């Protein structure tokens, strides 16, 4: 697999990126928030135009939210399956949208906003996708502090 090509490509944009390859063949990359669009554009020219999902992880200990982008290449037997991760703050979670580079990210970002409360600037779908429309504004159920209180809120 052409790991070295991908490594050099990303290091040329973001020199502080960290790489890790685990036993099952996955390739995990951590970069800074500002370089996200440049990295995705560069990877798309190399053939990475399929996005599986966008995952949001809630870290109460570091007071941050981590976003993972899972990408796959057009020729998947030569290039590895990547996961790119960025970290944003938990008190005011905001990031810009990437749906101009990868159009399928529109619906994944809408789901992350609905359930974790991360705002994506530039995403045209601003209303809740999965939860009903009368759930109050700052109720985002996947955060760790919500245990039993949600359905009482909906019942009122």
């Amino acid at each position, binding site marked *: 697999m052409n790991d070295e090509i991908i490594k050099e490509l990303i290091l040329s944009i973001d020199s502080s990126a960290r790489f890790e390859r685990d036993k099952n063949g996955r390739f995990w990359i951590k970069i800074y928030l500002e370089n996200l669009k440049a990295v995705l554009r560069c990877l798309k020219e190399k053939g990475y135009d399929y996005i599986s999902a966008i995952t949001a992880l809630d870290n109460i200990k570091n007071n941050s939210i981590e976003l993972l982008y899972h990408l796959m290449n057009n020729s998947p037997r030569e290039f590895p399956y990547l996961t790119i991760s960025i970290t944003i703050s938990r008190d005011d979670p905001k990031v810009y949208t990437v749906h101009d580079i990868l159009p*399928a990210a529109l619906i994944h970002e809408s789901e992350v906003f609905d359930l974790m409360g991360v705002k994506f600037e530039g995403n045209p779908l601003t209303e*809740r996708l999965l*939860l009903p429309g009368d759930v109050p504004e700052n109720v985002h159920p996947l955060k760790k502090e919500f245990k039993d209180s949600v359905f009482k809120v909906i019942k009122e």
Partner: protein
Amino acid sequence: MTYNLYFGPIHPALKEPINFTFEIEGERIVNVKPNIGYNHRGLEKLLESKTWLQSGFVAEHICGICSGAHNGCCYQGVERIFGIEPPRRGLFIRTLVWELERIHSHLLWLGVMLHESGFDTVFMYCWRDRELTMDLFEEMSGRRVVYSMNTVGGVRRDVTVSFLDKLKKYCNYLEERAKFYEDLIMGDTTILARLQGVAPLPKSDAASLSAVGPVARASGVKRDVRYEEPYAVYDESPFRIILREEGDALARTIVRIEEIKVSIDILRWIADNIPQGDYKIKFPPITKAPENEAISRIEAPRGELFYYFKSDGGTTPSRVKVRTPTFANILPVVKMLEGQYIADIPIAVASIDPCIACCERVTLIDRKTEKTTIVTMDQLRSHSKKYYKKAGGEKF
């Protein structure tokens, strides 16, 4: 001058609740806005309070048709977190369950598709052939619909030699029936007039919008997890990938019928070559996992199923993310319906094989304060009915 047409969530042409708003001019559709969330049960948050062994039993209740796929993918991910490998016989039995489930799901879909086109006799024929598959499942695993054959480290029950003989006889019978259905569809002018050229999806759109499953393969995009990163025993089996170029509803039908034939070949190979030995590894029911994260992807009957697990060293997972294939196919549906007639809406929506119950299984509904973790559908259904009546269907 465009009018708005509201479709769903309760409609005779739909099998599961989903709401679309179509903007129409005359008879042609100009714009589509989907609205999902009527079947939302909050299973991603529920999985954070179940142990590693119990997680598969919650995951398989996400969908009734593809429950074997969810069960196997969940336990494959848990095995990757712990770093254990199931034995060979266990992997063969797991692949057998996956391929038999693909046959039963495609037969169900074929019946529903022809029922939407107005051909009810063949709908009954397809579902009759599917009943024989359910009998095989009942003999092997104990239940007809939610089989729960997998566990961490292998499978829970063994298969006998007499079961494998019955499987081979069923494969011979099904091969003739698959040929009968294909001749029927390609030779009948009414069915061809309803399916050919309807709801096309060009290849560039299918690639850029990340379509998955037979929807992508019918438009010429070579996307199949069994080809990209082979798992279980697929790299030794006679698997081949089916592609078509046109991208309309007829191409999706032909791709699924050909996949039934490929599954029959794989089942015959499994029945002849299954090795002897153990079928599972001993695993304690309540145990702590090492700190790790893992991704597990398989090819469910509808497309690529994606599970992500994160463990913080406890007895329960700290985060589970599930992305089902129907969720990824919503944007291609919006694209393929532009410019089509209103009368083609049920055919277009049914041709992506929608499993709306799979689409909405994210976060919490931890409802009663006594911490019972069974989520009941009744209150959710009445809440959704009340919301729909109040909002009048208008959301975007």
